[in-house]
């Protein structure tokens, strides 16, 4: 593995800290909807911003660090909730990165909505494997529709942030 520059270490550290903070904040919030998996996805905001500013490998590193540290801090490390959050975060990351590579890539908001949906699909896939029944797919329509408002919110937030962060020359 190539050795990292000080700048890269600093940026990954900074974004990991923010992602962990959002991850914990979200875990502390009570879920307003009595449907599993319907949540805002605050930590995805960091993944989203990083995808637009930094190489994929940096983003992957932050996502993995965030899920592990977040898991340790919420006391859910290697529990079923940890595995679900890992599956969701990675699926979202892969789908969002792939969409960015399209010849006509979607906007930040489009990427965010697709990421939210991918997160839910990934989580449900792992949950189905864990319960060993594909009937969990009954939740999928609710989760897909709920990805639209939550993805929109996070996407708009990311758009505002990117417009303000990019002039700072943090690349």
């Amino acid at each position: 593995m190539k050795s990292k520059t000080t700048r890269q270490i600093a940026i990954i550290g900074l974004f990991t800290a923010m992602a962990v903070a959002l991850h914990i904040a979200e875990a502390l919030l009570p879920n307003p909807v009595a449907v599993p998996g319907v949540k805002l996805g605050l930590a995805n905001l960091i993944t989203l911003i990083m995808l637009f500013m930094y190489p994929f490998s940096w983003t992957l590193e932050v996502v993995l660090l965030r899920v592990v540290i977040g898991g340790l801090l919420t006391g859910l490390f290697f529990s079923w909730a940890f595995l679900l959050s890992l599956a969701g975060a990675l699926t979202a990351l892969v789908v969002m990165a792939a969409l960015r590579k399209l010849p006509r890539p979607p906007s930040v908001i489009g990427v965010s909505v697709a990421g939210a949906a991918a997160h839910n699909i990934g989580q449900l896939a792992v949950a189905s494997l864990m319960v060993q029944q594909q009937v969990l797919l009954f939740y999928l329509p609710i989760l897909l529709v709920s990805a639209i408002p939550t993805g929109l919110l996070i996407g708009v937030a990311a758009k505002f942030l990117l417009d303000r962060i990019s002039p700072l020359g943090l690349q």
Partner: protein
Amino acid sequence: MVKIKKWFHRTDVWIFAVLLFAALLLWLVPHLATESTKQATAEIYVDKELVETIVLDLEQNQAQQYTVKGAIGDVTIETKDGQIRIKEAPCNDQICVHTSWIKNQGQVIVCIPSHLLIQLKNGADDDGTDTTVY
């Protein structure tokens, strides 16, 4: 330098359309395929093992309770009027309890912390045809 001028892009429309269409399709298929008039049989699984099968009697006026041992403790299941629900579960989120009563074939209640699943199948007067499509 990242410069994103537009809020939306044409590709976004496809993302929204695909999501809504997939959701509609996935929602419609089980709903069109289930019948509510027939008596259903509830199958209770823990860790994929079938632990109990309960025939839901539409005329059952008196609530009846069952206790099933889940992965993190006992789960209390209740049946009444051809419906079934999880009355009490030891999990934190109580999602299974909030699912409340189910009665149609194909409906499910899941408690992931307990590794427990209740699935409604065709009733006793099963004609051998699958009416539920996943």
